[in-house]
């Protein structure tokens, strides 16, 4: 007990992510003074709102030990369906939003049912979902459909001015709303606790009498809902529907979740970390844009290197955790009364490490 860690180990990954963001942003400020302006900072949120929303859905899937590869395609499908219903069918824009959200959620539910009840691998099921959603886009149209709908256009260009020049838009509000909702779901509801428990060890979760079946289906429903919401945000952002919108965005979302400190084995991580993961990716993109001479593909390389560094760090962290076994047990016992769910995960985590 003598060297009880100053910071709970559980927060180490999260703190690393946040400090990395601060450091990178500081470097940006030193290199380009305009980074200090509120505009650039808020643009980070405006340009990455859609990524954040799918990354939130992805976080839940990954926390439960699964994955959702269909998110990027689902954005494409949402933009396509929205554009088609608005421009070709001239439907009420709010009805369109409701329809696409329902579509996303039911698409997710369908995949969740297949994953849980037929014991299929989430990777393959959501891969099928990826193909299906992208394919449905092509059936609607292979061309870009521009959105001229008044409501969509006005929402898209609506700005909330914070200072004279700096503003946020509806997308940022959705970004913030979904983050708050996700944090609430993950840490203050039975659903969230069950997600962590499933990610820690599904069998134990079942034996504990947790509603594993319902939760697992709901996770994918939520992820589908997030993808559709992200699709709406993307529609506001691009004001068009196109079958190739948000192509391969699922890898960015997974990268953001990993950089955010969530372990891909499940059971460990924070939604707020994912948000910083997205912001880190966004900052790098802005830096490369500001730099000017670096080509676009450097973004991909930097993303890859970031994921690599974070995974290496996670490994280091896990190895340390293995050594500090007895200490952690102490911590666990102390906390058992307040947060049984998270403690379960930590102990499960240790098991996987020792293997």
């Amino acid at each position, binding site marked *: 007990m003598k060297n009880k860690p100053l910071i709970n180990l559980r927060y180490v990954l999260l703190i690393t992510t946040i400090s990395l963001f601060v450091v990178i942003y500081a470097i940006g400020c030193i290199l380009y003074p305009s980074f200090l302006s509120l505009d650039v900072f808020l643009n980070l949120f405006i340009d990455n709102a859609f990524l954040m929303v799918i990354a939130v859905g992805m976080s839940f899937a990954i926390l439960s030990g699964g*994955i959702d*590869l269909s998110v990027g395609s689902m954005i494409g499908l949402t933009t396509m369906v929205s554009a088609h219903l608005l421009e070709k069918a001239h439907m009420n824009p709010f009805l369109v939003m409701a329809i696409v959200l329902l579509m996303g959620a039911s698409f997710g539910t369908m995949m969740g049912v*297949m994953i849980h*009840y*037929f*014991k*299929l*691998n989430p*990777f*393959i*099921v959501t*891969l*099928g*979902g*990826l*193909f*299906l959603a*992208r*394919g*449905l886009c*092509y*059936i609607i149209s*292979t061309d870009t459909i521009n959105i001229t709908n008044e409501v969509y256009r006005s929402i898209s260009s609506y700005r909330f001015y914070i200072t004279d020049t700096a503003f946020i838009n509806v997308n940022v509000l959705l970004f913030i709303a979904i983050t708050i909702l996700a944090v609430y779901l993950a840490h203050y509801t039975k659903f969230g606790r069950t997600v962590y428990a499933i990610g820690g060890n599904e069998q134990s979760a079942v034996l504990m009498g947790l509603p594993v079946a319902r939760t697992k289906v709901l996770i994918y429903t939520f992820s589908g809902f997030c993808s559709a919401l992200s699709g709406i945000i993307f529609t506001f952002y691009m004001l068009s529907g196109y079958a190739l919108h948000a192509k391969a965005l699922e*890898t*960015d979302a*997974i*990268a953001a979740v*990993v950089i955010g400190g969530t372990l*891909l*084995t499940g059971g460990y991580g924070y939604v707020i970390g994912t948000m910083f993961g997205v912001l880190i990716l966004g900052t790098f993109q802005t830096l490369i844009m500001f730099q000017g001479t670096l*080509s*676009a*593909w*450097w*973004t*991909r*390389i930097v*993303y*890859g*290197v970031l*994921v*690599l560094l974070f*995974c*290496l760090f996670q*490994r280091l962290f*896990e190895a340390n955790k293995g050594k500090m076994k007895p200490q952690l047990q102490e911590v666990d016992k102390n906390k058992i009364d307040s947060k049984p769910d998270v403690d379960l995960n930590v102990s499960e985590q240790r098991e996987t490490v020792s*293997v």
Partner: protein
Amino acid sequence: MGKKGSFDNIFKSKNFWSLTVLALLLLCNLIFTKGFFRIEIKDGHLFGSLIDILNRAAPMIIISIGMTLVIATKGIDISVGSTLAITGAVVAMLIGGNLQIVDGVQTYISKVPMALAIIVALLVAALIGLWNGFLITRVGMQPIIATLILSVAGRGVAQLLTNGQIITVYYKPFFFIGGGYLFGLPFSIYLVALIVGGTFFLTRKTALGMFIESVGVNPVAARVSGINSKNLMAAIYAFCGLCAGVAALLVTSNVKSADGIHAGELFELDAILAVAIGGTSLAGGKFYLMGSVIGALIIQTLKTTIYSIGVPPEINLVVEALVVFIVMLIQSEDFRKIVFRVKTVTE
């Protein structure tokens, strides 16, 4: 009793479901596509839809073979598409080809001797695989993250190599690999036969296959029983990279250019799909090389069928997705159980 037993055996046979799907697809073609099964001899080469399917499926089959072994060890490699793009860029860069006029005849000269270029490209591919293997076995990352790194960065690297442009190859002998004919059949088919046959021999006629399966079932038990599971796994990832490299040669030679962005797009997903259709469980353990070959053939037959029936190609992805779901559901024992139970109740 005996009869029922033999029926059970058929249903349980590892390739039964995938072969059924392939047969159904071919049957569809027999009914809807005229002359689908006709094979003609033109200029001493065999021509026909079936040959075409084999030829086009070649890169996918080769990658699925590597992927099968990776999945058998409880791993996954989602970087094969990027590996393909990088290798394609390397080989195209090295060969390149310039128009030169020698004795009044236009000839294309390669920058580097072709054999050397191919060897270097394959080495690069194997090294990429080995890097994945290193991260997984020595650093201890999960296969999906370790290969995610390259699947994110790989295309960036490929674009860096090609400077963001499509590199065109002007060197005739190189086109033979992906478009040439040998004894009336496309050369790619021989390459596939060589790799499938070689892998089959090594894994089924030696103990290697059993080692791989035991690592997939229980890595700790495998290590305790004396298998150097780390080196074995690293070698398998290197082999998977090598397979992607060979596929890259085929693809690059076939389209006569290297495209950093689009070469090998969705290949990793198609390959994993082929393996899953072939009956190899993604949870590792038993693997079926022939199943994966059939899986890759199903995917390609489906694509060719859609084109030849005259359905708009836009539907391709949707049909592919539906086939994924159907094959998965058929293979899922839980699904069969549920459906079976419903049947007995209604009867």
